[in-house]
């Protein structure tokens, strides 16, 4: 059954409607941001599609500014928009006590065109997804195991209008696939997302993942120690997601904490490591502008290992005396803060097999799990390896290994990188709207598995 794949809010006349509301509030300036998402997800496990979901969500968020003080009011449908403008204006007025605040809205500027629509994603409907889920579960069963995963498509919509003339609208397709195959004690995981469903290469990704689970049986523990490791794209992307915590956010830079504040221009990683926040790239989830209506630009985080810039929104850019890079974000239950939402690492030229071939003894890690910052100063994180991990011996994958805890500095790891893969994959960033990290496979050295040694004390 093919289902309608329509924009969360009809685009015709949308900017005019938002513009009229923005100008009617009586505040010094008003910004209205529509975030919409029509998502369909076919989630499967245990031999069935256990969670088919068809979710439409819209939010109209109004930011009103009075005497430099800002307040926001959001509603779920356009019916309440004018009331939201009134509420935000009233709250902003209540916050203005005679002193002048710093809040502003974006200056009108053209956003760069990026390719957002793919017909193949529009065609990735419930019937296709159910068929793919069924085939995946059957293939896993044939291999003696089982599969759990999710295939989905979505339409993401953003519109930003200000009373000062900003007017942007974007409607973007999104396709996502993820799978965990389990055979005996062997597991393998795959995740990828793209504006285009075809880019997921779904059938071969599923087949490869099941084959890896078969190969991953009879796992042995990882002895504590330091290893040369080859990280698959997902594990590598997980580490890159922590760069922001190391000081690439405008909030930390303004507080004079972290790498950009303390070590801008210094080399902290291997020359092979070039990472940017780049929402204009063709991978991940490109988008042309942020929630404040600022056109996004590529922000170099590490260029050949050298510390670059922080991502900013209007407020942190003002504190730093720069222009916003277009990274405004509001996470749920958190204060608004700029976020590196589209992290992309430059690819190298090696295959994973070539990276592995250069390792006499080490570990291949497909997926990390539950990674958390331990120490901001050293960018040390902890977590566990989870699926698809193998010992490497004499340049080849050898015995499968069980998940193991690690605690290691991502900067220490990135400083040892001596091999970068050519193929990249993308994954979502938790709690970040339209967030993605795109990474290649990486090879580095001295990576610490196991807890800190008691005898080191």
């Amino acid at each position, binding site marked *: 059954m093919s*289902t309608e794949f329509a924009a969360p809010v009809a685009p015709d006349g949308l900017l005019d409607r938002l513009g009229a509301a923005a100008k009617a509030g009586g505040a010094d300036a008003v910004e209205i941001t529509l975030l919409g998402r029509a998502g369909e997800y076919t989630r*499967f*496990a*245990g031999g*069935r*599609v*256990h*969670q*088919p*979901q*068809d*979710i*439409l*969500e819209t*939010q109209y*968020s109004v930011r009103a500014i009075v005497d*430099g*003080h*800002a307040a*926001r*009011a*959001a*509603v*779920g449908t356009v019916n*309440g928009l004018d009331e*939201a403008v009134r509420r935000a204006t009233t*709250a902003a007025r*209540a*916050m203005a006590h005679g002193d002048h605040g*710093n*809040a502003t809205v974006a200056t009108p500027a053209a956003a760069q065109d990026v390719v957002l629509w793919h017909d193949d994603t529009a065609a990735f409907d*419930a019937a296709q997804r*159910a068929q793919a*889920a069924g085939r995946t*579960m059957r293939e896993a069963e044939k291999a003696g195991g*089982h599969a*759990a*995963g999710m295939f989905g498509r979505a339409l993401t919509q953003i519109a930003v209008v200000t009373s000062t003339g900003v007017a942007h609208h974007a409607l973007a397709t999104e396709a996502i696939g*993820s799978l965990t195959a389990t055979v005996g004690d062997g597991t393998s995981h795959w995740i990828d997302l793209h504006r285009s469903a075809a880019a997921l290469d779904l059938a071969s990704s599923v087949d490869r993942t099941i084959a890896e689970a078969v190969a991953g049986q009879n796992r042995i523990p990882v002895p504590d120690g330091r290893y040369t490791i080859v990280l698959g794209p997902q594990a590598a992307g997980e580490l890159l997601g922590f760069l922001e915590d190391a000081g690439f956010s405008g909030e930390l830079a303004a507080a*004079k*904490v972290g790498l950009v504040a303390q070590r801008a221009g210094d080399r902290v990683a291997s020359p092979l490591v070039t990472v940017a926040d780049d929402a204009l790239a063709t991978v991940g989830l490109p988008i042309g502008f942020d929630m404040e209506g600022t056109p996004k630009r590529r922000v170099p985080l590490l260029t050949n290992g050298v510390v670059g810039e922080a991502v900013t929104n209007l407020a942190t850019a003002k*504190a730093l005396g720069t222009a916003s890079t277009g990274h405004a974000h509001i996470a*749920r239950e958190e*204060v608004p803060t700029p976020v590196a939402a589209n992290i992309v690492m430059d690819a190298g030229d090696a295959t994973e097999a070539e990276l592995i071939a250069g390792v006499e003894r080490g570990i291949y890690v497909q997926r990390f*799990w*539950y990674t*958390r910052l*331990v*120490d901001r*100063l050293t960018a040390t994180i*902890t977590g*566990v390896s*989870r699926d698809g991990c193998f010992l490497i011996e004499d340049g080849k994958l050898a015995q499968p290994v069980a*998940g193991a805890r690690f605690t290691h500095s991502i900067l220490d790891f990135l400083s040892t990188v001596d091999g970068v893969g050519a193929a990249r994959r993308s994954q979502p960033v*938790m709690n970040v709207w339209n967030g993605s990290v795109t990474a290649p496979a990486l090879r580095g050295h001295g990576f610490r598995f196991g*807890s*800190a040694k*008691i005898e*080191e*004390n």
Partner: protein
Amino acid sequence: MTAHEWGALADDAYARRVLESALDTVDGRVQYADARLIECEELRSYAQLGADPDERIEQNVGIGVRVLVDGQWGFAARPLAADTDAAAAARQAHASAVALAGSGKRVELPPREPASGRYETEVAQDPFAVDTAARHELLAAWLGAASTPAEVAAAQAGVNAKRQHRHFADTEGSRQHQHLLETGAMLVVTAAGHGDVQRRSYPNSFHGNTAGAGWEYLASLAMQENAARVGQEAVALLTAPAAPRGYADVVIGAQQVSLQIHESSGHALELDRILGDEANYAGTSFIQASDVGTLRYGSDAVTIASDPTRPGTRGSFAFDDEGTPARRAALIDRGIVRNTLSTRDSAARSGLALTGAARSDGWAYLPVCFSTHVYLEPGDGGSLDELLDRMGDGYYIDDNRSWSIDNQRLNFQFGTEVAYEVKKGRRGRLLKNFSYGGVTPQFWGSVEAVAGPSEFRAFGYPCGKGEPKQWGFLSHGASPMLVRDLRIGVA
């Protein structure tokens, strides 16, 4: 006017009509259907050192309809902009179930007696009636107290409130109307200097603390005096000695115990994880369905229960999000696994008891197994001082700094913001960068004693699960507990 008289869905009779219009749309074509109609409004005010304050209020209203057709689930959710949206959601849910006909194992729900009723959070002072300027004056005062030391590089203070009308109806005849309200506060201080960066937080280290109560809850937190304390402690940590490595006896404070419960008890006991439904994302569990009733999870001192009927917490309610009446269930009873956190689907498939833990993030997401108010029963350990005295030499730690656990909820590593050396039962030096690790059943098996009811505190948490990820809002409570021979200094 009460704190629950607001918005479009305060009227139960109106909400019931909307729900029934959705159910009528699929009448006769489903084995089962339920609909949740929810209006939510959330207020957040923040103040930050060196930045403008932020104020936001967010409202949404929508309907989520779940159907079971020929053994296959279907689900659709829509914002409620027009009268026709409820029926549209029901039609789409039906269509998505029909699209799966014959595609996999069938779901059969055992019949359930209908349960209807109304529930309201007790509120003394409506947080939404507090003046905007007054809220920000309060935040400015907290921020001022926290940031007095020069080494404070960043600080955030915030207050939050959320009110919800949650209406439920199903084809078995249940009609439920819950009017919830919660209020919370947060403070985080970051100090930098002496070549280090340290943070302190209050009253909870993760998004502050939120209770099922009104503005009166803030008075119980004594934010002003605690703001000054955590500011000073953040600075003191910069020059504090690092915590050692090895094995030691440790008294863990209530906040850190609450997170330990969340990660290693609550998640491990979610029945959908146990059955493999979350294998692709959130993970599985080291506990198997067949372990219920026999597995030794902890020492005799450890009794952990789920009880959403206890008022005043972020996990308090009268009915879960698929209409099961709330009740107390002992999850771990004197160290033995007795129950799981279950939904109708997972309970039916496993043959285990239904404990009413189906919860969803508003109207837009499917109910899944989440914690409710899951807490460690207070023990006979007396006061915190008595517990320290019982320990003798060791460490007292509290307030989570970092947390990580594997996908089976077995191998964990936590760090705390503060640690104090304890000698002969007396707190001594402040230490920084304390961490500990272990394996869940061994850890809980090493709990020698739990402090008494006078030390019990509840903490409201957000939690993430599912694909697409949804948030759960829940509560964990604990008194401090004494753990023997814990591996410390693992980070």
